[in-house]
Protein backbone atom coordinates (compact mmCIF):
# COMPACT_ATOMS: atom_id res chain seq x y z
CA UNK A 1 0.00 0.00 0.00
CA UNK A 2 2.73 2.41 0.99
CA UNK A 3 4.50 1.97 -2.32
CA UNK A 4 1.36 3.01 -4.20
CA UNK A 5 0.64 6.01 -2.03
CA UNK A 6 2.60 8.58 -4.10
CA UNK A 7 0.91 7.44 -7.31
CA UNK A 8 -2.50 7.69 -5.66
CA UNK A 9 -1.79 11.21 -4.41
CA UNK A 10 -0.53 12.11 -7.87
CA UNK A 11 -3.79 10.90 -9.42
CA UNK A 12 -5.81 12.89 -6.87
CA UNK A 13 -3.79 16.00 -7.71
CA UNK A 14 -4.44 15.46 -11.42
CA UNK A 15 -8.17 15.07 -10.77
CA UNK A 16 -8.21 18.29 -8.74
CA UNK A 17 -6.63 20.08 -11.69
CA UNK A 18 -9.13 18.66 -14.18
CA UNK A 19 -11.99 19.56 -11.82
CA UNK A 20 -10.69 23.12 -11.72
CA UNK A 21 -10.62 23.33 -15.50
CA UNK A 22 -14.09 21.89 -15.96
CA UNK A 23 -16.07 23.34 -13.07
CA UNK A 24 -14.69 26.80 -12.40
CA UNK A 25 -16.01 29.93 -14.06
CA UNK A 26 -13.18 32.29 -13.16
CA UNK A 27 -10.46 32.43 -15.81
CA UNK A 28 -7.68 32.61 -13.23
CA UNK A 29 -9.02 29.51 -11.49
CA UNK A 30 -9.14 27.65 -14.79
CA UNK A 31 -5.50 28.57 -15.40
CA UNK A 32 -4.64 27.38 -11.89
CA UNK A 33 -6.43 24.12 -12.66
CA UNK A 34 -4.22 23.62 -15.72
CA UNK A 35 -1.11 24.40 -13.68
CA UNK A 36 -2.11 21.90 -10.99
CA UNK A 37 -2.82 19.16 -13.53
CA UNK A 38 0.50 19.93 -15.20
CA UNK A 39 2.37 19.59 -11.93
CA UNK A 40 0.64 16.30 -11.24
CA UNK A 41 1.90 14.99 -14.58
CA UNK A 42 5.41 16.27 -13.88
CA UNK A 43 5.34 14.64 -10.46
CA UNK A 44 4.29 11.39 -12.04
CA UNK A 45 7.16 11.63 -14.50
CA UNK A 46 9.62 11.98 -11.62
CA UNK A 47 7.99 9.10 -9.72
CA UNK A 48 8.58 6.83 -12.71
CA UNK A 49 12.32 7.43 -12.38
CA UNK A 50 12.37 6.70 -8.65
CA UNK A 51 14.19 3.68 -7.44
CA UNK A 52 14.44 2.79 -3.75
CA UNK A 53 18.04 3.29 -2.66
CA UNK A 54 19.07 4.35 -6.15
CA UNK A 55 22.32 6.20 -6.73
CA UNK A 56 23.15 9.17 -8.90
CA UNK A 57 23.83 7.96 -12.45
CA UNK A 58 27.51 8.87 -12.68
CA UNK A 59 29.45 6.04 -14.23
CA UNK A 60 32.89 6.39 -12.70
CA UNK A 61 32.05 6.99 -9.05
CA UNK A 62 33.56 4.46 -6.74
CA UNK A 63 31.79 3.01 -3.74
CA UNK A 64 33.83 0.80 -1.39
CA UNK A 65 36.43 0.64 -4.12
CA UNK A 66 33.98 -0.67 -6.74
CA UNK A 67 32.20 0.91 -9.66
CA UNK A 68 28.46 1.31 -9.12
CA UNK A 69 26.47 -1.02 -11.31
CA UNK A 70 24.01 0.69 -13.71
CA UNK A 71 21.19 -1.36 -12.25
CA UNK A 72 21.63 0.45 -8.94
CA UNK A 73 21.28 3.88 -10.51
CA UNK A 74 18.28 6.14 -10.75
CA UNK A 75 17.04 6.59 -14.31
CA UNK A 76 18.33 10.04 -15.36
CA UNK A 77 16.18 10.53 -18.44
CA UNK A 78 12.89 11.54 -16.76
CA UNK A 79 14.75 14.23 -14.84
CA UNK A 80 15.86 15.78 -18.10
CA UNK A 81 12.36 15.42 -19.55
CA UNK A 82 10.65 16.97 -16.57
CA UNK A 83 12.78 20.09 -16.91
CA UNK A 84 11.67 20.47 -20.51
CA UNK A 85 8.10 19.85 -19.52
CA UNK A 86 8.26 22.49 -16.76
CA UNK A 87 9.64 25.06 -19.18
CA UNK A 88 6.87 24.32 -21.67
CA UNK A 89 4.38 24.65 -18.82
CA UNK A 90 5.84 28.02 -17.93
CA UNK A 91 5.37 29.25 -21.49
CA UNK A 92 1.76 28.02 -21.61
CA UNK A 93 0.95 29.59 -18.24
CA UNK A 94 2.56 32.90 -19.14
CA UNK A 95 0.64 33.00 -22.40
CA UNK A 96 -2.69 32.22 -20.76
CA UNK A 97 -2.17 34.80 -18.03
CA UNK A 98 -1.37 37.40 -20.69
CA UNK A 99 -4.62 36.42 -22.41
CA UNK A 100 -6.49 36.71 -19.10
CA UNK A 101 -5.20 40.25 -18.63
CA UNK A 102 -6.29 41.23 -22.15
CA UNK A 103 -9.68 39.59 -21.62
CA UNK A 104 -10.13 41.50 -18.36
CA UNK A 105 -9.33 44.69 -20.24
CA UNK A 106 -12.04 43.96 -22.82
CA UNK A 107 -14.81 42.61 -20.60
CA UNK A 108 -14.00 44.02 -17.15
CA UNK A 109 -14.57 40.61 -15.58
CA UNK A 110 -12.86 37.26 -15.14
CA UNK A 111 -16.15 35.35 -15.31
CA UNK A 112 -16.11 33.02 -18.32
CA UNK A 113 -19.93 32.82 -18.46
CA UNK A 114 -20.16 36.55 -19.21
CA UNK A 115 -17.96 36.20 -22.29
CA UNK A 116 -20.48 35.28 -24.91
CA UNK A 117 -19.19 36.58 -28.19
CA UNK A 118 -18.89 33.14 -29.70
CA UNK A 119 -21.77 30.76 -30.08
CA UNK A 120 -22.75 27.83 -32.13
Amino acid sequence: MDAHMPYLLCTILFCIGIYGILAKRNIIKIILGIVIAEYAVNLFLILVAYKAGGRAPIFDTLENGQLIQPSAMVDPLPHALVLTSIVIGLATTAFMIALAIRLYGKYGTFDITRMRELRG
Partner: protein
Amino acid sequence: MMITESTIPLFVAIPLAGAFLTAMLKRVKGIPDTLGVMSTICTFVMSVFAVMRLDIGERLLSNIGFWGGFSEVFGKIVGIQLVMDGLTSFMLVVVNLVAFIVAIYSVNYMTRYTAKWQFYSLFLLMVAGMNGVIITGDLFNLFVFLEIASLASYALVAFGTGKRELEASFKYAVMGGVGSLLILLGIIFLYSNTGTLNMGDMAVILSEQGMPSIIYLVFGLFLMGFGLKAALVPFHAWLPDAHPSAPAPISAMLSGVLIKALGVYAICRIFFNVFGFPEQISSLLMTLGAISMGVGALVALRQWDMKRLLAYSSISQVGYIMLGIGIGTPLAIAGALFHLFNHSIFKSLLFLDSGAVEYATHTRDLKQMGGLSKRMPITSTTTLIGAMSLAGIPPFAGFWSKLLIIVAAVQANHFGYAIWAVIISIITIGYVLKITRFAFLGTLRKRFSDIREVPAFMRISLIVLALICIFGGLLILPAIRGGFIGQAVSALLMGKGA
Protein backbone atom coordinates in the same frame (compact mmCIF):
# COMPACT_ATOMS: atom_id res chain seq x y z
CA MET B 1 20.85 19.63 -53.76
CA MET B 2 21.07 16.28 -52.07
CA ILE B 3 18.99 15.22 -49.11
CA THR B 4 21.24 13.23 -46.84
CA GLU B 5 21.16 12.33 -43.18
CA SER B 6 22.87 15.57 -42.25
CA THR B 7 20.36 17.83 -44.00
CA ILE B 8 17.30 16.44 -42.21
CA PRO B 9 17.59 18.78 -39.19
CA LEU B 10 17.44 21.75 -41.57
CA PHE B 11 13.68 21.26 -41.90
CA VAL B 12 13.40 22.51 -38.34
CA ALA B 13 16.47 24.73 -38.28
CA ILE B 14 15.58 26.93 -41.27
CA PRO B 15 12.15 28.10 -40.05
CA LEU B 16 13.48 28.48 -36.50
CA ALA B 17 16.34 30.64 -37.74
CA GLY B 18 13.88 32.57 -39.88
CA ALA B 19 11.66 33.24 -36.87
CA PHE B 20 14.63 34.38 -34.81
CA LEU B 21 16.05 36.64 -37.51
CA THR B 22 12.63 38.15 -38.19
CA ALA B 23 12.40 39.18 -34.55
CA MET B 24 15.96 40.52 -34.61
CA LEU B 25 15.69 42.51 -37.83
CA LYS B 26 12.14 43.74 -37.35
CA ARG B 27 13.06 47.39 -37.95
CA VAL B 28 14.49 46.76 -41.42
CA LYS B 29 11.80 47.40 -44.00
CA GLY B 30 10.71 44.36 -45.98
CA ILE B 31 12.71 41.89 -43.91
CA PRO B 32 9.76 40.04 -42.32
CA ASP B 33 8.16 39.39 -45.72
CA THR B 34 11.40 38.32 -47.36
CA LEU B 35 12.47 36.03 -44.54
CA GLY B 36 9.01 34.49 -44.24
CA VAL B 37 8.81 33.66 -47.92
CA MET B 38 12.47 32.63 -48.23
CA SER B 39 12.46 30.19 -45.32
CA THR B 40 9.26 28.49 -46.42
CA ILE B 41 10.42 28.21 -50.04
CA CYS B 42 13.68 26.63 -48.80
CA THR B 43 11.89 23.97 -46.77
CA PHE B 44 9.41 23.35 -49.58
CA VAL B 45 12.12 22.78 -52.18
CA MET B 46 13.97 20.53 -49.76
CA SER B 47 10.85 18.48 -49.10
CA VAL B 48 10.31 17.98 -52.84
CA PHE B 49 13.91 16.80 -53.15
CA ALA B 50 13.34 14.47 -50.22
CA VAL B 51 10.38 12.83 -51.98
CA MET B 52 12.41 12.33 -55.15
CA ARG B 53 15.42 11.04 -53.25
CA LEU B 54 13.68 8.33 -51.22
CA ASP B 55 13.01 4.85 -52.52
CA ILE B 56 10.06 2.84 -51.27
CA GLY B 57 10.65 1.44 -47.82
CA GLU B 58 13.82 3.40 -47.29
CA ARG B 59 14.47 5.22 -44.03
CA LEU B 60 17.07 7.88 -43.40
CA LEU B 61 18.14 8.28 -39.81
CA SER B 62 19.89 11.28 -38.40
CA ASN B 63 21.17 11.28 -34.86
CA ILE B 64 21.59 14.57 -33.12
CA GLY B 65 22.60 15.32 -29.58
CA PHE B 66 25.21 12.70 -28.84
CA TRP B 67 26.70 13.45 -25.47
CA GLY B 68 30.36 12.80 -24.95
CA GLY B 69 31.30 9.43 -26.34
CA PHE B 70 28.06 7.79 -25.21
CA SER B 71 26.61 7.09 -28.62
CA GLU B 72 25.04 3.87 -27.41
CA VAL B 73 24.46 2.92 -23.80
CA PHE B 74 23.47 -0.70 -23.20
CA GLY B 75 22.37 -1.01 -26.80
CA LYS B 76 19.99 1.94 -26.58
CA ILE B 77 20.38 5.15 -28.51
CA VAL B 78 21.04 8.16 -26.37
CA GLY B 79 20.01 11.40 -27.98
CA ILE B 80 17.31 12.39 -30.38
CA GLN B 81 16.80 10.54 -33.61
CA LEU B 82 15.29 12.17 -36.66
CA VAL B 83 13.68 9.83 -39.16
CA MET B 84 12.89 10.39 -42.80
CA ASP B 85 10.68 7.81 -44.47
CA GLY B 86 7.89 7.82 -47.03
CA LEU B 87 5.20 9.20 -44.74
CA THR B 88 7.54 11.88 -43.41
CA SER B 89 8.47 13.19 -46.83
CA PHE B 90 4.82 13.13 -47.92
CA MET B 91 3.73 15.18 -44.92
CA LEU B 92 6.66 17.56 -45.31
CA VAL B 93 5.58 18.34 -48.85
CA VAL B 94 2.00 19.01 -47.73
CA VAL B 95 2.98 21.25 -44.82
CA ASN B 96 5.66 23.23 -46.59
CA LEU B 97 3.70 23.69 -49.81
CA VAL B 98 0.79 25.24 -47.93
CA ALA B 99 3.15 27.25 -45.70
CA PHE B 100 4.94 28.65 -48.75
CA ILE B 101 1.73 29.72 -50.48
CA VAL B 102 0.33 31.18 -47.27
CA ALA B 103 3.55 33.16 -46.75
CA ILE B 104 3.20 34.71 -50.21
CA TYR B 105 -0.46 35.52 -49.55
CA SER B 106 0.36 37.16 -46.23
CA VAL B 107 2.69 39.69 -47.84
CA ASN B 108 -0.36 41.66 -48.97
CA TYR B 109 -3.00 40.46 -46.55
CA MET B 110 -1.19 41.18 -43.31
CA THR B 111 -0.77 44.87 -44.15
CA ARG B 112 -4.19 45.22 -42.49
CA TYR B 113 -2.62 44.42 -39.15
CA THR B 114 0.12 46.19 -37.30
CA ALA B 115 3.28 44.31 -36.28
CA LYS B 116 3.82 42.18 -39.33
CA TRP B 117 7.12 40.88 -37.95
CA GLN B 118 5.34 39.29 -35.01
CA PHE B 119 3.07 37.52 -37.42
CA TYR B 120 5.91 36.11 -39.50
CA SER B 121 7.91 35.20 -36.43
CA LEU B 122 5.05 33.18 -34.93
CA PHE B 123 4.16 31.74 -38.32
CA LEU B 124 7.69 30.42 -38.86
CA LEU B 125 7.76 29.03 -35.32
CA MET B 126 4.56 27.15 -36.09
CA VAL B 127 6.06 25.76 -39.32
CA ALA B 128 9.20 24.72 -37.41
CA GLY B 129 7.05 22.96 -34.82
CA MET B 130 5.06 21.09 -37.44
CA ASN B 131 8.14 20.04 -39.39
CA GLY B 132 9.64 18.88 -36.10
CA VAL B 133 6.60 16.77 -35.23
CA ILE B 134 6.82 15.17 -38.64
CA ILE B 135 10.50 14.30 -38.79
CA THR B 136 11.14 13.31 -35.21
CA GLY B 137 11.62 9.66 -34.32
CA ASP B 138 11.43 10.25 -30.61
CA LEU B 139 8.22 10.35 -28.63
CA PHE B 140 9.16 13.03 -26.14
CA ASN B 141 10.67 15.19 -28.86
CA LEU B 142 7.37 14.86 -30.68
CA PHE B 143 5.65 16.27 -27.60
CA VAL B 144 8.06 19.22 -27.45
CA PHE B 145 7.58 20.16 -31.10
CA LEU B 146 3.85 19.68 -30.75
CA GLU B 147 3.85 22.21 -27.93
CA ILE B 148 5.94 24.67 -29.97
CA ALA B 149 3.47 24.49 -32.84
CA SER B 150 0.47 24.66 -30.50
CA LEU B 151 1.73 27.64 -28.53
CA ALA B 152 2.50 29.56 -31.71
CA SER B 153 -0.99 28.76 -32.99
CA TYR B 154 -2.66 29.91 -29.73
CA ALA B 155 -0.90 33.24 -30.09
CA LEU B 156 -1.76 33.50 -33.79
CA VAL B 157 -5.45 32.88 -33.12
CA ALA B 158 -5.40 35.84 -30.72
CA PHE B 159 -3.54 37.96 -33.26
CA GLY B 160 -6.40 40.38 -33.91
CA THR B 161 -6.73 41.02 -30.13
CA GLY B 162 -10.46 41.71 -30.39
CA LYS B 163 -13.01 40.23 -27.99
CA ARG B 164 -13.74 37.27 -30.19
CA GLU B 165 -10.14 36.47 -30.94
CA LEU B 166 -9.07 36.55 -27.29
CA GLU B 167 -11.99 34.43 -26.19
CA ALA B 168 -11.42 31.87 -28.94
CA SER B 169 -7.73 31.76 -28.17
CA PHE B 170 -8.37 31.18 -24.47
CA LYS B 171 -10.76 28.33 -25.22
CA TYR B 172 -8.26 26.85 -27.66
CA ALA B 173 -5.36 27.25 -25.22
CA VAL B 174 -7.24 25.54 -22.38
CA MET B 175 -8.41 22.60 -24.48
CA GLY B 176 -5.09 22.32 -26.27
CA GLY B 177 -3.30 22.42 -22.92
CA VAL B 178 -5.41 19.56 -21.58
CA GLY B 179 -4.78 17.62 -24.78
CA SER B 180 -1.02 18.07 -24.41
CA LEU B 181 -1.17 16.91 -20.78
CA LEU B 182 -2.99 13.73 -21.78
CA ILE B 183 -0.41 13.07 -24.50
CA LEU B 184 2.45 13.59 -22.04
CA LEU B 185 0.79 11.24 -19.56
CA GLY B 186 0.49 8.59 -22.26
CA ILE B 187 4.16 9.03 -23.17
CA ILE B 188 5.18 8.59 -19.53
CA PHE B 189 3.17 5.36 -19.22
CA LEU B 190 4.80 4.02 -22.37
CA TYR B 191 8.25 5.02 -21.18
CA SER B 192 7.78 3.36 -17.81
CA ASN B 193 6.80 0.13 -19.56
CA THR B 194 9.36 0.03 -22.32
CA GLY B 195 12.28 2.07 -20.96
CA THR B 196 12.84 3.89 -24.23
CA LEU B 197 11.47 6.92 -26.01
CA ASN B 198 12.68 6.04 -29.49
CA MET B 199 9.66 5.02 -31.52
CA GLY B 200 11.48 2.35 -33.49
CA ASP B 201 12.91 0.72 -30.36
CA MET B 202 9.57 1.01 -28.64
CA ALA B 203 7.80 -0.84 -31.45
CA VAL B 204 10.38 -3.64 -31.28
CA ILE B 205 10.10 -3.94 -27.51
CA LEU B 206 6.29 -3.89 -27.59
CA SER B 207 6.10 -6.58 -30.24
CA GLU B 208 8.66 -8.79 -28.51
CA GLN B 209 7.30 -8.54 -25.00
CA GLY B 210 3.64 -8.31 -25.94
CA MET B 211 1.42 -5.43 -24.99
CA PRO B 212 1.31 -4.67 -21.28
CA SER B 213 -2.17 -4.37 -19.84
CA ILE B 214 -1.70 -0.64 -19.27
CA ILE B 215 -1.61 -0.19 -23.05
CA TYR B 216 -5.38 0.33 -23.22
CA LEU B 217 -5.07 3.31 -20.92
CA VAL B 218 -2.33 4.63 -23.22
CA PHE B 219 -4.58 4.13 -26.26
CA GLY B 220 -7.28 6.13 -24.55
CA LEU B 221 -4.94 8.93 -23.52
CA PHE B 222 -3.42 9.22 -27.00
CA LEU B 223 -6.80 9.11 -28.72
CA MET B 224 -8.11 11.87 -26.47
CA GLY B 225 -4.96 13.96 -26.70
CA PHE B 226 -4.35 13.71 -30.42
CA GLY B 227 -8.10 13.68 -31.04
CA LEU B 228 -8.22 17.09 -29.36
CA LYS B 229 -5.47 18.30 -31.67
CA ALA B 230 -7.16 16.80 -34.74
CA ALA B 231 -10.63 18.05 -33.69
CA LEU B 232 -12.36 14.66 -33.91
CA VAL B 233 -15.94 15.08 -32.90
CA PRO B 234 -16.27 14.63 -29.17
CA PHE B 235 -13.19 16.84 -28.80
CA HIS B 236 -13.90 19.41 -31.51
CA ALA B 237 -15.41 22.29 -29.50
CA TRP B 238 -12.43 24.64 -29.88
CA LEU B 239 -12.07 24.44 -33.65
CA PRO B 240 -15.16 26.33 -34.86
CA ASP B 241 -14.17 29.26 -32.62
CA ALA B 242 -10.42 29.24 -33.11
CA HIS B 243 -10.17 28.77 -36.86
CA PRO B 244 -12.51 31.61 -37.90
CA SER B 245 -11.02 34.03 -35.36
CA ALA B 246 -7.49 33.81 -36.70
CA PRO B 247 -6.34 36.00 -39.63
CA ALA B 248 -7.25 34.28 -42.91
CA PRO B 249 -3.74 32.97 -43.77
CA ILE B 250 -3.55 31.42 -40.32
CA SER B 251 -7.01 29.90 -40.66
CA ALA B 252 -5.70 28.32 -43.82
CA MET B 253 -2.65 26.98 -41.99
CA LEU B 254 -4.66 25.73 -39.00
CA SER B 255 -7.39 24.01 -41.00
CA GLY B 256 -5.13 23.03 -43.85
CA VAL B 257 -2.15 21.52 -42.12
CA LEU B 258 -1.95 22.05 -38.35
CA ILE B 259 -4.76 19.68 -37.38
CA LYS B 260 -3.28 17.11 -39.75
CA ALA B 261 0.36 17.41 -38.72
CA LEU B 262 -0.36 17.41 -34.98
CA GLY B 263 -3.43 15.21 -34.97
CA VAL B 264 -3.85 12.89 -37.93
CA TYR B 265 -0.15 12.36 -38.63
CA ALA B 266 0.65 11.70 -34.98
CA ILE B 267 -2.23 9.22 -34.68
CA CYS B 268 -1.06 7.40 -37.82
CA ARG B 269 2.55 7.34 -36.78
CA ILE B 270 1.95 6.12 -33.26
CA PHE B 271 -0.85 3.65 -33.84
CA PHE B 272 0.67 2.12 -36.97
CA ASN B 273 4.41 2.27 -36.44
CA VAL B 274 4.58 1.90 -32.66
CA PHE B 275 1.53 -0.15 -31.73
CA GLY B 276 1.18 -2.11 -34.98
CA PHE B 277 -2.43 -1.00 -35.54
CA PRO B 278 -4.48 -3.23 -33.24
CA GLU B 279 -8.00 -4.27 -34.23
CA GLN B 280 -9.86 -2.25 -31.57
CA ILE B 281 -8.22 0.97 -32.72
CA SER B 282 -9.33 0.31 -36.27
CA SER B 283 -13.02 0.17 -35.40
CA LEU B 284 -12.70 3.05 -32.93
CA LEU B 285 -11.11 5.31 -35.56
CA MET B 286 -13.77 4.38 -38.10
CA THR B 287 -16.55 5.21 -35.63
CA LEU B 288 -14.98 8.51 -34.60
CA GLY B 289 -14.40 9.37 -38.25
CA ALA B 290 -18.00 8.60 -39.21
CA ILE B 291 -19.37 10.68 -36.31
CA SER B 292 -17.06 13.59 -37.19
CA MET B 293 -18.16 13.47 -40.82
CA GLY B 294 -21.83 13.63 -39.89
CA VAL B 295 -21.71 16.25 -37.14
CA GLY B 296 -19.33 18.55 -39.04
CA ALA B 297 -21.36 18.48 -42.24
CA LEU B 298 -24.76 18.92 -40.58
CA VAL B 299 -23.68 21.84 -38.41
CA ALA B 300 -21.90 23.45 -41.36
CA LEU B 301 -25.23 23.56 -43.22
CA ARG B 302 -26.75 26.07 -40.81
CA GLN B 303 -23.78 28.46 -40.53
CA TRP B 304 -23.94 31.95 -42.03
CA ASP B 305 -20.41 33.05 -41.17
CA MET B 306 -18.28 32.02 -44.14
CA LYS B 307 -15.19 31.06 -42.16
CA ARG B 308 -17.20 29.27 -39.49
CA LEU B 309 -18.90 27.19 -42.17
CA LEU B 310 -15.50 26.24 -43.55
CA ALA B 311 -14.25 25.37 -40.06
CA TYR B 312 -17.12 22.91 -39.51
CA SER B 313 -16.45 21.51 -42.94
CA SER B 314 -12.87 20.83 -41.81
CA ILE B 315 -14.19 18.67 -38.97
CA SER B 316 -16.27 16.74 -41.47
CA GLN B 317 -13.37 16.23 -43.90
CA VAL B 318 -10.97 15.13 -41.17
CA GLY B 319 -13.64 12.54 -40.43
CA TYR B 320 -13.20 11.20 -43.97
CA ILE B 321 -9.45 10.94 -43.46
CA MET B 322 -9.91 9.14 -40.16
CA LEU B 323 -12.42 6.74 -41.70
CA GLY B 324 -9.92 5.84 -44.41
CA ILE B 325 -7.14 5.34 -41.91
CA GLY B 326 -9.40 3.30 -39.66
CA ILE B 327 -10.28 0.88 -42.46
CA GLY B 328 -6.57 0.19 -42.68
CA THR B 329 -6.26 -1.57 -46.05
CA PRO B 330 -3.54 -0.24 -48.39
CA LEU B 331 -6.15 1.27 -50.73
CA ALA B 332 -7.99 2.96 -47.86
CA ILE B 333 -4.80 4.45 -46.44
CA ALA B 334 -3.81 5.67 -49.89
CA GLY B 335 -7.26 7.27 -50.18
CA ALA B 336 -6.99 8.82 -46.74
CA LEU B 337 -3.55 10.30 -47.38
CA PHE B 338 -4.64 11.50 -50.82
CA HIS B 339 -7.65 13.13 -49.19
CA LEU B 340 -5.35 14.66 -46.59
CA PHE B 341 -3.30 16.22 -49.38
CA ASN B 342 -6.39 17.42 -51.24
CA HIS B 343 -8.06 18.75 -48.14
CA SER B 344 -5.02 20.76 -47.17
CA ILE B 345 -5.01 22.32 -50.65
CA PHE B 346 -8.70 23.10 -51.14
CA LYS B 347 -9.39 24.10 -47.55
CA SER B 348 -6.45 26.52 -47.56
CA LEU B 349 -7.71 27.83 -50.89
CA LEU B 350 -11.22 28.39 -49.51
CA PHE B 351 -9.95 30.05 -46.33
CA LEU B 352 -7.66 32.32 -48.37
CA ASP B 353 -10.64 33.14 -50.58
CA SER B 354 -12.74 34.00 -47.54
CA GLY B 355 -9.84 36.22 -46.48
CA ALA B 356 -9.87 37.87 -49.89
CA VAL B 357 -13.59 38.52 -49.59
CA GLU B 358 -13.10 39.93 -46.11
CA TYR B 359 -10.21 42.04 -47.38
CA ALA B 360 -12.43 43.61 -50.03
CA THR B 361 -15.81 43.81 -48.29
CA HIS B 362 -14.92 43.76 -44.56
CA THR B 363 -17.59 41.22 -43.78
CA ARG B 364 -17.76 37.45 -43.39
CA ASP B 365 -21.54 37.22 -43.17
CA LEU B 366 -22.93 35.38 -46.18
CA LYS B 367 -26.28 37.14 -45.81
CA GLN B 368 -24.67 40.51 -46.48
CA MET B 369 -22.75 39.45 -49.57
CA GLY B 370 -23.97 38.72 -53.05
CA GLY B 371 -22.94 39.29 -56.63
CA LEU B 372 -19.26 39.53 -55.81
CA SER B 373 -18.32 37.53 -58.91
CA LYS B 374 -18.75 40.63 -61.06
CA ARG B 375 -16.26 42.61 -59.03
CA MET B 376 -13.85 39.87 -57.97
CA PRO B 377 -13.57 37.42 -60.87
CA ILE B 378 -10.39 35.67 -59.71
CA THR B 379 -11.59 35.19 -56.14
CA SER B 380 -14.94 33.87 -57.27
CA THR B 381 -13.48 31.48 -59.86
CA THR B 382 -10.93 30.06 -57.46
CA THR B 383 -13.59 29.70 -54.77
CA LEU B 384 -15.74 27.81 -57.23
CA ILE B 385 -12.85 25.46 -58.04
CA GLY B 386 -12.04 24.88 -54.38
CA ALA B 387 -15.70 24.34 -53.57
CA MET B 388 -16.09 21.81 -56.38
CA SER B 389 -13.04 19.96 -55.14
CA LEU B 390 -14.47 19.98 -51.60
CA ALA B 391 -17.84 18.75 -52.79
CA GLY B 392 -16.26 16.00 -54.86
CA ILE B 393 -17.37 16.96 -58.37
CA PRO B 394 -15.64 14.56 -60.82
CA PRO B 395 -12.75 16.23 -62.61
CA PHE B 396 -11.42 17.87 -59.46
CA ALA B 397 -8.98 16.28 -57.04
CA GLY B 398 -11.41 15.93 -54.13
CA PHE B 399 -13.60 13.53 -56.08
CA TRP B 400 -10.84 10.96 -56.62
CA SER B 401 -9.76 10.79 -53.01
CA LYS B 402 -13.34 10.40 -51.74
CA LEU B 403 -13.90 7.75 -54.39
CA LEU B 404 -10.82 5.83 -53.21
CA ILE B 405 -12.04 5.90 -49.60
CA ILE B 406 -15.55 4.75 -50.54
CA VAL B 407 -14.26 1.98 -52.83
CA ALA B 408 -11.90 0.82 -50.10
CA ALA B 409 -14.76 0.77 -47.59
CA VAL B 410 -16.82 -1.41 -49.94
CA GLN B 411 -13.88 -3.74 -50.56
CA ALA B 412 -13.35 -4.17 -46.84
CA ASN B 413 -17.06 -5.01 -46.41
CA HIS B 414 -17.90 -1.85 -44.50
CA PHE B 415 -21.01 -1.08 -46.56
CA GLY B 416 -22.59 1.06 -43.86
CA TYR B 417 -19.61 3.38 -43.75
CA ALA B 418 -19.47 3.54 -47.54
CA ILE B 419 -23.14 4.60 -47.77
CA TRP B 420 -22.63 7.08 -44.94
CA ALA B 421 -19.67 8.62 -46.80
CA VAL B 422 -21.80 9.02 -49.94
CA ILE B 423 -24.65 10.65 -47.97
CA ILE B 424 -22.27 13.07 -46.28
CA SER B 425 -20.69 14.06 -49.58
CA ILE B 426 -24.18 14.98 -50.84
CA ILE B 427 -24.66 17.19 -47.75
CA THR B 428 -21.24 18.65 -48.53
CA ILE B 429 -22.52 19.78 -51.92
CA GLY B 430 -25.34 21.52 -50.03
CA TYR B 431 -23.18 23.72 -47.84
CA VAL B 432 -20.68 24.36 -50.61
CA LEU B 433 -23.46 25.66 -52.83
CA LYS B 434 -24.44 27.96 -50.00
CA ILE B 435 -21.09 29.74 -50.21
CA THR B 436 -21.08 30.17 -53.97
CA ARG B 437 -24.78 31.04 -54.16
CA PHE B 438 -24.88 33.67 -51.42
CA ALA B 439 -21.42 35.19 -51.76
CA PHE B 440 -20.74 35.29 -55.46
CA LEU B 441 -23.99 34.93 -57.40
CA GLY B 442 -27.09 37.11 -57.27
CA THR B 443 -27.23 40.87 -57.47
CA LEU B 444 -24.42 43.10 -56.33
CA ARG B 445 -25.28 45.26 -53.34
CA LYS B 446 -24.91 48.97 -53.67
CA ARG B 447 -22.42 49.32 -50.84
CA PHE B 448 -20.06 46.90 -52.58
CA SER B 449 -20.27 48.64 -55.96
CA ASP B 450 -16.75 50.06 -55.71
CA ILE B 451 -14.83 47.09 -54.30
CA ARG B 452 -11.81 45.90 -56.19
CA GLU B 453 -10.05 42.60 -56.79
CA VAL B 454 -7.36 41.78 -54.22
CA PRO B 455 -3.65 42.68 -54.71
CA ALA B 456 -1.21 40.72 -56.84
CA PHE B 457 0.46 38.41 -54.32
CA MET B 458 -2.90 37.28 -52.98
CA ARG B 459 -4.13 36.60 -56.51
CA ILE B 460 -1.02 34.56 -57.36
CA SER B 461 -1.38 32.28 -54.36
CA LEU B 462 -5.10 31.78 -55.01
CA ILE B 463 -4.44 30.83 -58.64
CA VAL B 464 -1.62 28.42 -57.74
CA LEU B 465 -3.79 26.60 -55.21
CA ALA B 466 -6.69 26.43 -57.67
CA LEU B 467 -4.39 24.89 -60.30
CA ILE B 468 -3.28 22.24 -57.80
CA CYS B 469 -6.96 21.53 -57.10
CA ILE B 470 -7.59 20.92 -60.78
CA PHE B 471 -4.48 18.89 -61.58
CA GLY B 472 -4.17 17.19 -58.18
CA GLY B 473 -6.46 14.49 -59.51
CA LEU B 474 -3.54 13.29 -61.64
CA LEU B 475 -1.94 11.96 -58.45
CA ILE B 476 -4.35 9.05 -58.64
CA LEU B 477 -2.55 7.72 -61.73
CA PRO B 478 -0.58 4.67 -60.58
CA ALA B 479 2.74 5.94 -61.95
CA ILE B 480 2.63 9.13 -59.92
CA ARG B 481 0.80 7.64 -56.96
CA GLY B 482 3.49 5.03 -56.40
CA GLY B 483 6.23 7.56 -55.89
CA PHE B 484 4.40 10.04 -53.72
CA ILE B 485 1.52 8.52 -51.79
CA GLY B 486 2.66 4.93 -52.28
CA GLN B 487 5.80 5.58 -50.29
CA ALA B 488 3.81 6.98 -47.43
CA VAL B 489 1.42 4.02 -47.46
CA SER B 490 4.23 1.50 -47.45
CA ALA B 491 5.90 3.35 -44.57
CA LEU B 492 2.70 3.03 -42.55
CA LEU B 493 2.05 -0.58 -43.47
CA MET B 494 5.59 -1.52 -42.50
CA GLY B 495 4.54 -0.92 -38.92
CA LYS B 496 1.44 -3.06 -39.38
CA GLY B 497 3.63 -5.93 -40.42
CA ALA B 498 2.03 -6.39 -43.84
